[in-house]
């Protein structure tokens, strides 16, 4: 019997080892994720014990805390609505969002990187101070993007294609995060209720989430990339040039935006179709490539995947199991193709950066209160969706699109700009979605800019609405 009791002892030891392992997992390895969960209010309750770190742009706080004389000791303060979708809010009653949420462990001093500070705080009895999070944002560009959008709804993103650093990220309308950070339950709640029910959905960050947009002609970058990558097409490949194309298996037909033929002859080249943004040749091209090849290229660009910047970017979608007619419509970004502006910016940065996408990133570095560097994310390669030569050809075509084609309003004297506009339809009678995405200088890009503007009752184009906004940001490169 002694032997079986010893075996039972070993078994009990195993049971306890399992408990030790699970406790360690929760309290060490999963701890940051669990503390950062928006439903976990403990970190925000702790905000009245610790001085929460600031969120900095070019070393100037855009969100910071100061001492007040109430139960919660520290009041969170936000500098400007311009940064509302980046900082998010940190509310005692509504939880937290965006950087306030994703970087909460650092801001509240609870991250595992600050382990020794925590021990120090326990031993010395002085409360720990949160770390400061420095963003990659360029204040000038961010303000320019905010101003350029004016009173329109939409989003602007600027990225350095060589690193993935996000230089500007604006979503309009913004909101006043100070209202939500109020220590009064009733005023915080009523402000939240108001924002939540606002028809303009100011709490939605249109750049990375939301209902997403039809990419329209901007999607031609993906279709052209798929064609060039297949090896069966060159910019000089020719397509039948008609003023109307009957969709297979359907009674409806499509036309170019001009309602005429694309070029002057019987056929039109891929280059001309791209530069002048004609729908019919692209529908033909899309049908020749087929759904599968379009999907493969789309997925290489990141469509269907989520990215953490560190906020989660909703996956963009390219529909499945389409009929030929639906493939034709998808080839110029209609039907059920849906994209976030961030996804469009990533596609553009692949073209700008010789075929390589760097994962978009908002965090420059995290520095503790005593100036110790806690985290400094290095640029991460997201993928190489296209070859260097394809990127070169697309750059040339986008340059021509600005220089002599449909994106002319982005032209900047003295600097080569590459760009593509889009005017997406959202159903009969609904307002259009206006796009511009591009980069400059075309030969050695410093900056990728993507603009989306939600239309109103007026019928305009991406070139008249979005391209000038893109131009204003790209001008800063000079």
């Amino acid at each position, binding site marked *: 019997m002694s032997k*079986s*009791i010893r075996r*039972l002892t070993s078994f009990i030891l195993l049971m*306890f080892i*399992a408990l030790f392992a699970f406790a360690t997992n929760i309290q060490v390895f999963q701890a940051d994720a669990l503390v950062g*969960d928006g439903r976990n209010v403990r970190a925000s309750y702790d905000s009245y014990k610790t001085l929460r770190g600031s969120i900095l742009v070019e070393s100037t706080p855009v969100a910071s805390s100061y001492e007040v004389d109430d139960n919660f000791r520290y009041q969170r303060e936000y500098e400007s609505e311009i940064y509302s979708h980046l900082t998010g809010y940190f509310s005692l009653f509504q939880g937290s969002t965006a950087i306030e949420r994703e970087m909460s462990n650092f801001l509240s001093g609870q991250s595992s990187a600050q382990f020794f500070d*925590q021990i120090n705080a326990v031993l010395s009895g002085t409360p720990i101070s949160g770390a400061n999070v420095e963003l990659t944002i360029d204040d000038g560009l961010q303000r320019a993007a905010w101003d350029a959008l004016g009173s329109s709804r939409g989003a602007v993103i600027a990225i350095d294609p060589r690193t993935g650093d996000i230089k500007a990220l604006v979503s309009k309308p913004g909101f006043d995060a100070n209202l939500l950070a109020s220590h009064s339950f009733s005023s915080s709640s009523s402000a939240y209720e108001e924002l939540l029910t606002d028809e303009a959905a100011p709490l939605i960050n249109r750049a990375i989430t939301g209902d997403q947009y039809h990419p329209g002609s901007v999607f031609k970058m993906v279709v052209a990339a798929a064609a060039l990558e297949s090896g069966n097409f060159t910019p000089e490949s020719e397509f039948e040039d008609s003023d109307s194309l009957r969709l297979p298996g359907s009674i409806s037909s499509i036309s170019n935006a001009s309602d005429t033929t694309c070029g002057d002859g019987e056929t039109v080249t891929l280059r001309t179709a791209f530069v002048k943004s004609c729908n019919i040749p692209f529908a033909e091209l899309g049908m020749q490539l087929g759904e599968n090849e379009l999907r493969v290229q789309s997925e290489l660009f990141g469509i269907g995947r989520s990215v953490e910047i560190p906020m989660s970017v909703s996956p963009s979608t390219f529909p499945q199991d389409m009929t030929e007619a639906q493939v034709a419509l998808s080839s110029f970004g209609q039907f059920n193709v849906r994209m976030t502006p961030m996804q469009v910016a990533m596609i553009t940065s692949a073209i700008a950066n010789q075929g390589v996408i760097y994962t978009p990133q908002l965090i420059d570095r995290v520095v503790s209160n005593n100036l110790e560097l806690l985290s400094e994310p290095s640029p991460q390669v997201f993928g190489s969706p296209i070859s260097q030569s394809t990127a070169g050809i697309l750059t040339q075509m986008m340059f021509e699109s600005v220089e002599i084609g449909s994106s002319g309003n982005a032209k900047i004297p003295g600097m080569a700009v590459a760009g593509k506009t889009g005017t997406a339809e959202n159903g009969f009678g609904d307002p259009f979605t206006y796009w511009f995405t591009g980069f400059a200088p075309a030969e050695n890009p410093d900056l990728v800019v993507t603009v989306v503007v939600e239309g109103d009752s007026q019928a305009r184009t991406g070139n008249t609405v979005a391209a000038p906004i893109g131009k204003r940001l790209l001008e800063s490169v000079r």
Partner: protein
Amino acid sequence: MSNMSLTQALPRLINSVPRSRSMEAVLLFWVAGMHAFQLAQIQLSATDNLDEQILLYWTPLFLASFVFHMVLRFKAKAADSLLLPLATLLNGLGISMIYRLDLAEAARGNEQLLGMRQVWLTLFAMAVAALVLWVLKNHMTLKRFTYIAMAAGILTLLLPMLPVIGAEINGARLWIRLGELTFQPGEIAKLLLVIFFAGYLTKHRDSLSLIGKKIWGVRIPRARDLGPLLLVWVASLGVLVLQRDLGTSLLYFGIFLALLYVATGRGFYAAIGIGMIITGGLVASQLLSYVGNRFDSWLNPFVQENYTGVGGSYQLVQGLFGMAHGGILGAGLGGGYPQLVPLAANDFIFAAVAEELGLVGVFAVLSIYLLITYRGLRIAISHRDDFSRLLAAGLSFVIALQVFIVVGGVLRLVPLTGLTTPFLAAGGSSLLANWLVIALLLRISDSANKQVIQ
């Protein structure tokens, strides 16, 4: 010592602690000091000042532990000297945490005195346990009550099913209510059943150990020897269906299985039994909606529908949030928010401890349970008599398995059940049962050590 491996050295080190009552007294003073320190820290962090109120929470346990110590000096001189200090340490920590939760509730405007209640229940439980030690001169007497224990155990188990006195709390029908007092008979039933299992298996271990035919190279027991195992399995499932309590059901079956294995030394019982647990669990999760819900909440606690659903994973997830918030070092006593977890003083006291004392505290508390179990199993091995061995092994395993099920539930290792955390959780039935376990283990160890001396 130099050429001794850690696995040899550690047990030897633990065994080298002298079995002396003086040692026990020293340890009890140390435990009392720890308890005072906890209470002081809690009061300071909650109210910013220190007053004599904490003495009301400290003194009774301190005195009771020394009365218990004196009973041992007179009635069980040779008994193990670690069990009493270890149990007192946990009991004290439990009182501290419950007092701490009371203060948190008071800050929210809810006056509750669960901590004071726990102090009185502790006194009661320790008094009964000391009385048992005093009266029960030889635990072999219990062997004579094998079948009476069985009948009493089953009756006790069925009490909550009776109308009028039976009561359902949080969906499980485990309580009886007499006026203001509620009692969980299952806690006592588990002791009676351990006595029954030990007696029954002492008598039948030889026939149960017989080996039947060999099939596919594995020797399996004769069909009729599987009878008792099947019977207990069916009875455990009965508990699951009638009283709607997964934990109790698992506990009873697990205890029987462990003792069956210890008595016979036959691995196939363990294999078959674990298979039966898995089968029973899977079938129950399909057929019984509340078991299915528990499984779903266990596997997908963070899904919003489970989190917000009635009887969903809210409590579990809040517990995980709290423990994660505590991290390695803990928020410090009084520094966390254990009151955010529903039923923090009962089901989730372990999460409260983990949040405030951190992973360090978790390791300490689990090690104390492990040490209690380990001492119990040492007592089992050192005794020459079969019944005593089985009884000691069974009692130790009760504590180990109960800790595994309830703490495992809080840590999401197993589905969450309604068992109590021994010595820590608020509640008299549980305290009484666990102090009786300690009393019986002390009694058996006294007789084991005397037999060695002779």
